[in-house]
């Protein structure tokens, strides 16, 4: 067990009591509404805020707890805040090289490492610029590179993609996903974006007012949201698979057609329950992914109904429909029907 923490802390109106665990190479996503204490918890892990109670242990080293408080500079964490917090007096390259230099890497090696990290995020052309010459999104990409350049044991990401423009976000998300795959430490990812959480994380922790309201694997949480917030946020069906062609990923559901993707091999396929249409008969038309299935459960969450289907291969598909549709299609456990998803609604990411 790489990260084993119990973050207890009272601060202003906030009363944190948050267990966080992550194995080697594992990514834990922490989700929750504004003010839930997510950022505060990350700062405790980084050592910037002192623990009120509980403990922080990484690889069986005690970083905090029982009167111990290891200095942030000795913890080997990488912290990426929502604000980029680049050093205003350093170029992008020098910002990224700062961490390696701090840990004793030679000037040349640190610069090379910086360039490599910037390149991976498509920001190499910015290397010579100072933060005040970068737009918000550019700056955030440099900050991501900086956090990754130190090979931290524990990577703390606080809404890393929130400032990126929608066209760039998938690219950076994919880069981050690829980077996290080879990364051997543990990652705690705070995010508001369910797609980030579901595609990057192995384990989700939902926090409200400092407490865990639900946690589990992505599939678990998606299948059984126990709370309106969670149901709202986690709006995806997610399947591991194998990207075999330019627009096909084979999964437990069978081949899933996407609108095109560039990677091959291990892949995630995701689509929103709301994108799943249900038909009493096999539909013809543009939904190119259609699967027969049997309704396992129908739940009303807020104003919509979530319908769980067992598809033929044993996989589960969740559809979100209006309560009126439930009535019109007479949905109840045991109903056989067809589920359809348009290829343009399917996201595929390298795993």
């Amino acid at each position: 067990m790489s990260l084993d923490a119990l973050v207890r802390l009272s601060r202003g109106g906030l009363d944190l009591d948050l267990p966080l665990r992550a194995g080697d190479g594992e990514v834990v996503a922490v989700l929750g509404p504004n003010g839930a204490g997510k950022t505060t918890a990350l700062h405790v892990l980084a050592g910037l805020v002192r623990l009120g109670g509980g403990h922080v242990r990484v690889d069986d080293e005690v970083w905090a707890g029982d009167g111990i408080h290891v200095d942030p500079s000795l913890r080997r964490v990488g912290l990426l805040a929502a604000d980029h917090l680049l050093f205003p007096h350093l170029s992008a390259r020098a910002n990224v090289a700062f961490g390696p230099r701090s840990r004793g890497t030679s000037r040349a090696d640190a610069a090379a490492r910086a360039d490599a990290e910037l390149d991976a995020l498509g920001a190499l052309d910015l290397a010579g610029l100072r933060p005040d010459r970068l737009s918000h999104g550019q700056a955030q990409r440099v900050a991501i590179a900086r956090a990754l350049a130190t090979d931290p044991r524990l990577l703390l990401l606080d809404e890393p993609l929130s400032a990126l423009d929608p066209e760039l976000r998938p690219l950076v998300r994919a880069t981050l996903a690829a980077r996290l795959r080879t990364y051997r430490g543990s990652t705690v990812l705070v995010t508001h974006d369910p797609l980030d959480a579901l595609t990057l994380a192995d384990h989700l922790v939902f926090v409200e007012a400092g407490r865990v309201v639900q946690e589990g694997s992505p599939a678990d949480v998606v299948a059984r949201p126990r709370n309106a917030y969670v149901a709202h946020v986690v709006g995806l069906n997610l399947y591991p698979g194998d990207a075999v062609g330019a627009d096909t990923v084979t999964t437990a559901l069978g081949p899933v057609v996407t609108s095109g993707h560039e990677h091959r091999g291990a892949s995630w396929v995701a689509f929103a329950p709301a994108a799943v249409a249900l038909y009493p008969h096999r539909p013809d038309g543009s939904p190119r992914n259609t699967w027969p299935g049997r309704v396992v459960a129908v739940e009303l969450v807020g104003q919509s109904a979530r319908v769980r289907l067992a598809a033929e291969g044993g996989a589960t598909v969740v559809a979100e429909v209006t309560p009126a549709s439930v009535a019109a299609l007479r949905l109840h456990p045991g109903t056989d029907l067809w589920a359809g998803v348009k290829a343009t609604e399917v996201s595929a990411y390298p795993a």
Partner: protein
Amino acid sequence: MRLSRALIVVPAVLAALVVVLPLVGLLAGVEWRGLPARLADPAVRPAVRLSLVTTLATVVVCWALGTPLAWLLSRADGRGATWLRAVVTVPVVLPPVVGGVALLLAYGRRGLVGEPLLEVLGLRIPFTPIAVVLAQVFVSLPFYVLAVEGAMRGIDRRLIDVSATLGARPLRVLLRVALPLAAPGIVAGTALAWARALGEFGATITFAGNFAGETQTASLLVYVALQDDHQTAVALSLAMLAVAVAVLGLLRGRWVR
């Protein structure tokens, strides 16, 4: 000019006048014809050279010792820090001549540190150029420390936090993050400390004496000249001012936008 702006500009101009008028008075009072001859006096060169060397040494000591102190003070929040800060300000309050006496009592032949230094190492500080530097550091350091501390307090704490998570040890955080971000304050503090050292008189004459070529700085020479012929004193002061304004102007022009 609109009222709101005028309410800023008018007092600012008054402030500038408070400083500038006496300087204009000084310039108006100069007998320009005799000036070159007065500055050619053989006592002038060594005094000016000594002033430049000792004030430079003072600035270096301020950098080396004052910067870490300013940094620690800027990061500390306790009562201890508050009182240490007050104590560091004390040399500003002390009439410089009394400061000189205090320095003698500490580093003099019978002084707290001076006596052991003399007996064990055979090192005598007073009445040497080292004493000049020590006197200047004593009066200048507070200005440096307080100016730099103020600038360092203004740094976004989160940048410091981030540099720590990137693995930077305290010294590196200070040198690579805090120093550049506090650069305007450091330039201001350096300028203040250097200028104060250049003008230093009371502590120096008391602690270091007033030996031509050895401890007689330009400022002391001005004092001596003022005893009989204030034109020489004024001429030398003007020369000092010209150097100071040039140095400060260039320093600023380079280091601060």
